[in-house]
């Protein structure tokens, strides 16, 4: 019993060590490419564009009233970076399997959980760096422009880390589900397009007329009601949507609402990671 306990304790220690080692290697590999720097720059440029728009509005309109003028730039920034890292996670995971390096890892003290969590933490680490860059940028920008920087900014930035975790975990899921790199990317983009398409369809259909009388049901009504339900589900399933709602809760000082949405995102992370591990176990490591 004592030996089993020691073995079990050691196994967890080895697991943790494998996860951290894989995370270090993978994050290092991400920083060896120019892609992440281009993405961070593009994300900052997009945030700059959004903020510049507010500045131009102030110049023209003389008055600009905003409780959190930096929320939208932060949201845009974190969305772009997390999306890129999710794609990187998907490509990295599926390439390991495609080219056979995953099998080599599994000869050693690496299993499905260590692999998935290692890649997950790797991209999360990169995201943390991006957030730090964003914090520096935001601080410099608020100082230069004389914007108000509130504690809520930090809360949102921290929340965005959890959101990024969910998006990255989704990338990993598409990788193990799709198998090959191209398939994984296709699945990833298809799901994104599907979610976006459903939301756009909901907006379009809900603006169409409804011809209803007691004897006839408008088929658009059926489609509309379905899309309303689907949109509602997407609101809960999409990490971006949850971050948006968490931001609203922060602005409204709604602690319970904020904790609810944070909890939902954390739950998404857990489900997606668990799903990835289980699917990889089922599919095996051979490409």
């Amino acid at each position, binding site marked *: 019993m004592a030996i089993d306990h020691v*073995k079990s304790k050691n196994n967890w220690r080895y697991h943790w060590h494998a996860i951290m*080692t894989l995370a270090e290697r993978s994050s290092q*590999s991400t920083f060896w490419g120019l892609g992440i720097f281009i993405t961070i720059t593009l994300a900052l440029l997009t945030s700059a564009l959004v903020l510049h728009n507010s500045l131009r509005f102030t110049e023209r309109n003389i008055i600009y009233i905003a409780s959190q003028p930096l929320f939208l730039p932060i949201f845009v920034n974190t969305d772009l970076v997390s999306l890129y890292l999710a794609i990187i996670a998907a490509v990295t995971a599926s390439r390991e399997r495609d080219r056979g390096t995953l099998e080599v890892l*599994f000869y*050693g*003290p*690496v299993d499905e959980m260590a692999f998935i969590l290692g890649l997950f933490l790797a991209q999360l680490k990169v995201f943390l760096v991006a957030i730090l860059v964003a914090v520096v940028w935001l601080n410099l920008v608020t100082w230069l422009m004389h914007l108000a920087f509130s504690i809520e900014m930090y809360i949102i930035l921290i929340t965005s880390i959890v959101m990024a975790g969910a998006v990255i975990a989704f990338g990993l899921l598409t990788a193990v589900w799709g198998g090959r790199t191209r398939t994984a990317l296709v699945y990833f983009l298809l799901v994104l397009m599907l979610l976006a398409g459903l939301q756009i369809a909901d907006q379009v259909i809900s603006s169409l007329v409804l011809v209803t009388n007691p004897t006839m049901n408008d088929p658009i009504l059926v489609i509309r009601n379905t899309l309303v339900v689907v949109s509602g589900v997407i609101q809960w399933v999409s990490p971006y949507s949850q971050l948006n709602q968490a931001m609203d809760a922060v602005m409204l000082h709604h602690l319970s609402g904020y904790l609810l949405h944070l909890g939902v995102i954390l739950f998404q992370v857990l489900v997606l990671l668990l799903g990835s591990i289980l699917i990889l176990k089922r599919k095996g490591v*051979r490409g």
Partner: protein
Amino acid sequence: MIQTTNLTKTFGDYTAVDHLNLKILPGETYGFLGPNGAGKTTTLLMILGILKPTEGEVHVFGEPVSSGSFSIKRRLGVVAEYQTFYDEMTAWEYLLFFSKLFEVEDPEKRIQELMARVQLWKWRDVLLGGYSTGMKRKLGFVRALLHSPEVLILDEPVSGLDPFGVVQIREVLIDEHIAGKTILISSHILSEVERTADRVGIIAQGRLLVEDSMVNLRQKVGGYRRIELQALHPTEKLVQEIHALPFVDRIDQENDLMVIYTHDDADYRADLGRFLTSQGVVVQGMRALETTLEEAFITITEAHIRDWTGSQDGD
């Protein structure tokens, strides 16, 4: 050290490994042989826990592999048949990564020592995408040895290597064997296995046909069925007369050198000697030839395939 019990793997209707019972003892070098498609790689993958057996069990260091215990994997060193690497890393970075994974002590020193042994040290800062096939195979070896594993599992370890590389790897394997490591080699280059293996297991169509020491194997299969004779200017008439001897099966001749195949394992050198003397033949040399592993392998597997085909036809 490694034990498989009724190990079976099926892929749909096809049985790749069929109730395989292997036992590899601590400190021995075990040659794992078989024709293409025999189930060697599948067996190795099950031992490594990469594939899950359909039936049966694998125990390594007394622990079931199915437990997924990391303590097993940390004591294994593996060189696979098809090796892939991270092309964007240098050899140094790659080995440092695996050193960290296996928690190797003083990794820089260990890496340098191993790389120098296989003459890769001067290429340590080259991206792996620029490595040749042979260099990658040697690097795989270095990776497998980094953490001083107790067991080495090698699948085609010298494939793609030039003769120098083969010698380097052989020397490493001998050193590891002397150090008491258990080595499981699967290879088609039977001469290399012959040089290093204590025991050999031959499988075909997923089944273990024979498992024995090299000496016993040769004796079982071939014994002393060949006599190499070097005579001065042998005539055609002499060759025919030798062929007519009751114990001779056939003769392969190349100039002055003849290889005489006998019907059975008995030592007919004395009889042959007497005959040659009676004919006044000048014998420059005569020796009995051992059955090689290659010959034993072909004999055993051919027989199995013949029997198997026959049983299939009979059905």
